[in-house]
C-alpha cells in the first residue's frame, strides 16, 4: 500500500480529487547518515512522507506517516541518522557526504556547557569523573555563527537550536538573528531574538525560523514565537553600520536582563545567526564588519564562535578572540546551494507577504484530499491564511521617521568620528504630504510607545524602541491628507510612531 495513499510510479491516482491528474510517487531508502536534498522551483510544491525509520529536517524530527508539504522555492534536506524510507512526489538527489556528525558533536559540546551551568544553578555537587565539572563558574554556550554567503549559517544555527530543545531537558535557548537580510520568523530588516522551546520547522523560505504568533490556534510553539525585534530597515548591513551596532547592543541588553530574571533560560544559552557581510573581507566595507562582530561578541557575551567553512576568517577570529573565546571551524554542507540576489529578493517578498497574509502551500496535485502538514501545522488551510486589516488614517495620526539622511555617503568614506556620524543616527520626520516622501508602498515598523515618564525621555529614544508590528502604506491621498495603511490586525495608530526603511511592499 502506498504510504502517500497513491499508486506508485505514476499510475493514476484512484482516489485523488483531481481525477485524471496522475501523481508520481517514489520511495527511497536512505542509508544511515545520508540525506535527501531538494530545491523547489517557483510555483512548485513537494510532499514527503516518512514511511519507516527516523528522519529530520535541519534538526526537527519528522513524524512517521504524516505528509509534509514544502513550497515557495524551499531548499532543504531530509537527514537520517539510522536510515529510513521516505516517499515523495519528486526526486532530487541523495548525498552521503554531510557534515552532520560534526554538527552533532558541536551540539554535544554545547550541551556539556549547558549541563555544567545548570548544575551550579541548581547547587548540585560536581561529578567526580569530569574535570571541567569542577569549574566553580561554568558558562553556558553563547554562540556566534559566522560564515560567508551560502555557507549554511542559518541551517547550522537552526540545527543547534533544534537539537537543544529536543534533549527533553526543557531547554529554552535564545535564537538571535542579526542578519537583517533574513526575515526569520517575521520580516526582513529586523534584528531580533526569540526564546525557542520546540523544533523550528522547515517548509518554505517565507518562514525559515518558525513563525511569529498569530491569533490562530497552532500545534507547534515554534509557530507562535514571541520575538523581541528592533527595526534596522535595510537588508544590507553596510547601509548604516552604526545603527546596526546600536540595535545589536539593545538586543543584547534585553537578553541579559532576561537571563538575570531566568537562570534556567541563561543556562540554555544563545545561538546568534549573522549576515554573510560579517565574513566577507572583500570590498570597501571590510572595516565595519569587525566593529559589528565586536558588537555581537560584547552584547551577547559570546564565548563560542563557529566559523562555517572559511579558513581565512577562522584565522582572523583566532587572532582577535582566540585567547578568550573558543573558535571552532566547522565544515560547510555540500548541500548548500548558491543563491543569487534575485532569489533573495523573492524570499524577502515571500516573508513580507507571509507576515501579513500567511501562506498556505498548495499540496502537489492529487494530494489535496489527504491531510498534510505545513511547517508542522495540521490544518494549514484553516490557520495559515491570515487576514490583515486595511484602514484609512489621517496623516497626522501617525508620526513617521526615517533614520539618517536619505542619500548618505558610506561611513567608510569618512574618517572615523567625523561629523557625518551624527546625521547617520538622526531620526528625521517624514511628511507624507510632501511629494517624494518615499512612503508609497513602503514597509514601516510600528514602535512600542515611548517611556510614559517624561523625565526618562531623550533624543533618539525611538532608536531604542522595540517593534510591535509592521505596516505598509498602500495609498496616499495628499489633497485630503489621508493614507491607507495595511496592518497585520485591528488597532488604532493615533499618536503612534513608525520608522520607514528601504523595503518596498509588492503585491
Amino acid at each position, binding site marked *: 500500500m502506498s504510504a502517500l*495513499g497513491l499508486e506508485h510510479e505514476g499510475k493514476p491516482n484512484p*482516489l485523488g480529487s483531481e481525477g485524471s491528474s496522475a501523481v508520481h510517487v517514489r520511495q527511497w531508502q536512505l542509508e544511515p547518515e545520508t540525506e535527501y536534498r531538494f530545491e523547489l522551483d517557483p510555483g512548485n510544491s513537494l510532499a514527503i512522507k516518512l514511511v519507516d525509520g527516523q528522519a*529530520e529536517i535541519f534538526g*526537527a*524530527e*519528522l513524524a512517521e506517516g*504524516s505528509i509534509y508539504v514544502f513550497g515557495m522555492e524551499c531548499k532543504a534536506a531530509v537527514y537520517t541518522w539510522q536510515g529510513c524510507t521516505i516517499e515523495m512526489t519528486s526526486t532530487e538527489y541523495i548525498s552521503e557526504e554531510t557534515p552532520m*556528525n*560534526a554538527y552533532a*558533536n558541536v*551540539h*554535544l*559540546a*554545547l550541551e*556539556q556547557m549547558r549541563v555544567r551551568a545548570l548544575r551550579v544553578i541548581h547547587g*548540585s555537587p560536581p*561529578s567526580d569523573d569530569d574535570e571541567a*565539572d569542577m569549574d566553580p563558574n561554568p558558562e553556558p554556550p553563547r554562540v556566534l555563527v559566522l560564515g560567508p554567503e551560502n555557507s549554511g549559517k542559518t541551517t547550522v544555527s537552526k540545527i543547534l537550536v533544534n*537539537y537543544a530543545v529536543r534533549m*527533553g531537558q526543557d531547554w529554552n535557548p535564545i535564537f538571535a538573528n542579526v542578519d537583517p537580510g533574513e526575515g526569520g520568523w517575521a520580516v526582513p530588516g529586523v534584528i531580533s531574538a526569540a526564546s525557542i522551546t520546540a*523544533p523550528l520547522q522547515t517548509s518554505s523560505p517565507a518562514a525559515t525560523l518558525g513563525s511569529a*504568533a*498569530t*491569533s490562530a490556534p*497552532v500545534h507547534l*510553539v515554534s509557530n507562535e514565537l*514571541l520575538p*523581541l525585534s528592533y527595526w534596522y530597515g535595510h537588508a544590507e548591513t553596510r547601509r548604516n553600520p552604526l545603527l546596526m551596532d546600536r540595535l545589536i547592543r539593545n538586543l543584547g541588553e*534585553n537578553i541579559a536582563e*532576561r537571563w538575570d530574571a*531566568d537562570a534556567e533560560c541563561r543556562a540554555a544559552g544563545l545561538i546568534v545567526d549573522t549576515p554573510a557581510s560579517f565574513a566577507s573581507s572583500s570590498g570597501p566595507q571590510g572595516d565595519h564588519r569587525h566593529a559589528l562582530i565586536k558588537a555581537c561578541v560584547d552584547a551577547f557575551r559570546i564565548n563560542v564562535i563557529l566559523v562555517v567553512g572559511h579558513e581565512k576568517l577562522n584565522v582572523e577570529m583566532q587572532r582577535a578572540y582566540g585567547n578568550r573565546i573558543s573558535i571552532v571551524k*566547522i565544515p560547510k554542507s555540500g548541500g548548500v546551494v548558491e543563491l543569487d540576489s534575485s532569489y533573495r529578493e523573492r524570499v524577502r517578498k515571500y516573508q513580507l507577504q507571509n507576515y*501579513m497574509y500567511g501562506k498556505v502551500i498548495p499540496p502537489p496535485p492529487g494530494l489535496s484530499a489527504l491531510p498534510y502538514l505545513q511547517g*508542522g501545522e*495540521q*490544518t494549514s488551510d484553516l490557520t495559515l*491564511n491570515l*487576514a*490583515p486589516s486595511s484602514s*484609512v*488614517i489621517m*496623516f*497626522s495620526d501617525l508620526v*513617521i521617521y526615517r533614520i539618517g*539622511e536619505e542619500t548618505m555617503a558610506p561611513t567608510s568614506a569618512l574618517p572615523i568620528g567625523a561629523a557625518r556620524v551624527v546625521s547617520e543616527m*538622526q*531620526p*528625521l520626520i*517624514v*511628511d507624507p504630504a*510632501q511629494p517624494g516622501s518615499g512612503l508609497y508602498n513602503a514597509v514601516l515598523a510600528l514602535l*512600542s*510607545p*515611548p517611556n510614559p515618564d517624561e523625565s526618562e525621555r531623550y*533624543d533618539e529614544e525611538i532608536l531604542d524602541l*522595540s517593534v510591535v508590528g509592521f505596516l505598509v502604506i498602500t495609498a496616499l491621498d495628499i489633497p485630503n491628507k489621508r493614507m491607507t495603511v495595511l496592518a497585520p*490586525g485591528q488597532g488604532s*495608530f493615533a*499618536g*503612534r510612531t513608525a520608522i520607514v526603511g528601504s523595503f518596498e511592499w509588492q503585491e
Partner: protein
Amino acid sequence: MSLYPQPHTQVFNSPPYPAQGYGQPLIPPTSYHYPPPVQPTFHVDPQTFRRDYTTRLADLTVNSRPIIQNLSMIAQEYSRYAEIVAQCIEMHIRRVPLWMKLPAFYLLDAMSKNVFDPYARCFTPLVVTLFIDTYEQVDPSTRSKMEEMLLTWRTGAPNGRELFGVVPQVAIERHIWGGDTTMTASSSRSGGSSSISTAQVLSELEFVLSQKERTLQANPYDKLAQNHVAVLQQLRKLVQAGVSQEELNQILTQLRSLAQPASSSPPPVPAPVPQSYSTASYSVSPPSYPTPIDQTMYPSQPAYPTASFSVSKTEPVDFSLLVPQPTAASSVSATVSAPSAPASNIANLFNALVRTGVLSTSGTPTGAGTIAKTEEAAAPAPPDPEKEVAKVYRKTILANKLKLTSADIVRQRLNVASLLYKRLPVQCKQCGVRFPDGPKGRKTMEGHLDMHFRQNRKASQAVSRGYSRSWFISVEDWVHDGSIDIKGKGRADGRKINSSAAAAAEAAKREAELRALFVVVPPGDEAKPISCPICKEILKSEFLEDDEEWVWRNAVRRDDKIYHATCHAEATASKSTLAVRLRNEVSSSRSRSQTPEKQILRTPPKVSLSFSGEQRKANSPSPTTPMGMKRKADDDASNSSLETMRGEPPTKKLAVSA
C-alpha cells in the same frame, strides 16, 4: 447495556463474539492491519468482487463480531477495490431496514479505524450525508449509539486526529447537536445566538465521565480522578435539572478541555527498563466509550490510545547510560510506601514527612526518636528525584569525552542519535515531538495530545473574518517571560503553563478575536444609534466593502441586545457561574491546562495591542526634518487599555469607497 445487543438468533451457534470484545487488538497495536483473510476465495475481477461483497454484506443483519471482522479483513485484502467496498457499504446502509443500519455503521467504523488507509479516505466524502441521513431516520436508542460512535471519531485516526478529518467531523456534530459553541460573526450574522442542546452536553459529559471513571477504576488512589468524577457526577445532575444556554456553552467548553484524547490509564508501576512501557501497556488501556464498561461490547476497541503512541522499536539498549533512570524513583517510592506514585508526588510526600518531623534530612532523627529511626534506616536521605534525573542526564552528557575544537569536532564519532531518538521512546505521531518513557513522560504526552485535539477543534470553529498576525509583545513582557513560574515549565513540547509573555500573547489573541466579531446592521437601522448595555458607548457601525453590508464591529448579539464583544466577554468572565465553579474545582488540581481562560479574560491585555497614547502633531513642512528637540510629551493618555480603545473611532473609514 452493550452496543452489540444480544442477537435474537445466535450466529455461528456460539456467542456472537469472543469475550474480549470486538476492538481488542489481536495483533501488535502499532499495526493497524488484520492478518490476511482466512479464506481468500475471491476472483480479482471487480464485477465479481462487487457482487460477492454485496452478498456477504447481506449477512450483516445483527451486530456480529465475526461477520464484521471477516468483512473488514476481506476489505483490507482487497484494498485496491476500496472504492467498490465503500460503495457497497453505502448502498447497503441506505437500502436495508432501519434495524440493520447500525451494524453496517459498525463495519464502516471498524474498517476506517483499523485498516484506516485507504478506507477512512474512501468514506470521507460520503460519511457526512450517510451519517446524517441515517441518524434522522433511526430511533432514539440507535441515535445515542451513533452519537457515541461519533465521539470516538474525533480522535479515531492513527495519528489521534479526526477519523474522517476536521471538516466532516464538525459538520456532523453541528448537525446533530446544533450550531457551534463559539460566537462567531457568522453565527451572529445568521441571527441570534446558536443554541446547544442539553442532549449534546449530556452526551459529551457521559463520555468524559466514563473516561474519568475508568481512570479511577484502574487507579483508585488517583485523587485527581476522584475529584473529576465527583464534580462530573454533580454536574450531570445539574444539567439534567436544567441550566441556561450560557452555562451549557461554558460547560461544554470545559468538558472538551477535560476530555482526554489519549488513554487515561493509570501509570503502571515504574520499572527500570523502558521496554516495560512498550505499546502493550498502552493497548490495554481502558476503552474510550461512554457506555458502562462491558468487556463484550463492540467499542471496547481502544481506537486512539494505540494510535497515538509510537514506541521506538525496542532493540537491546546499547547506550544504557542514556536511558533515564526510573529506578531511582522507584527505589525511593518503595521506602515511602507509595509504589505507583509518580516521581513528583514522591518528592511532595517526602517533603511532607520531613516537615512533620517523621523524617530527617540530616540523618539525625528530629522528632520522636524511634519512629524516625526505622524510617531513616529504610530511606537514608532520599534525594530529590528531579535532581536525580538531572544528575543522571548530566553524567550521560559529560561521559562523552569531547573538546570544542576544530579537530575534535570532525574526528569524534559519538552516538548523538541515541540521545535524540532512542532515549526518548514515546513519540507523538502527529508532530514528531518525543517524550521520555515512564509515568511523567507519558503524562506529558497525554497533555500534549490533548493540546492537539483542542487546537484542531479551535481551528475548525474558525472566526469568520479569519485570523491575523499578532502584535509583538512589549520589551517588559519579553524580558520577564518565564521568570514568574519556573516550576510551571517542564513540558517537553515547549508549552509553558504560566509565562507572562505567553499569557499576554494569549490575551492579545483573545482580544483580537473578539474585536473581529461583528453583527450585521438590520437594513434601515444604519443611522439608529445603539449603545452597548455594559459601557453605554454608542456602537460604531462601518461598511464592509467585501460583503457590501453595514456591520457593528466588536459586537455580539445576546438575547436581542447588542453588546461590545469585549465588554460582554469581560462581564461573562467575572460572573461567578456554574462553569467557573467547575473550572476552579477541576483546574486547580490540573496541571496540564495552559493559560487558564479565566485569567485571560479577567486580565485586561497589557500588550501593545491597545494603541493609546497622545495625539502627536506632525506638521513639519519638509519630508525630512531633523527631530532635534526633545519631544513635548503630553502623555496624560498613557493609561492604555480597553477604555481608550473603545472610545476611539473605527479605523476603517467608509469614505474610501467614493
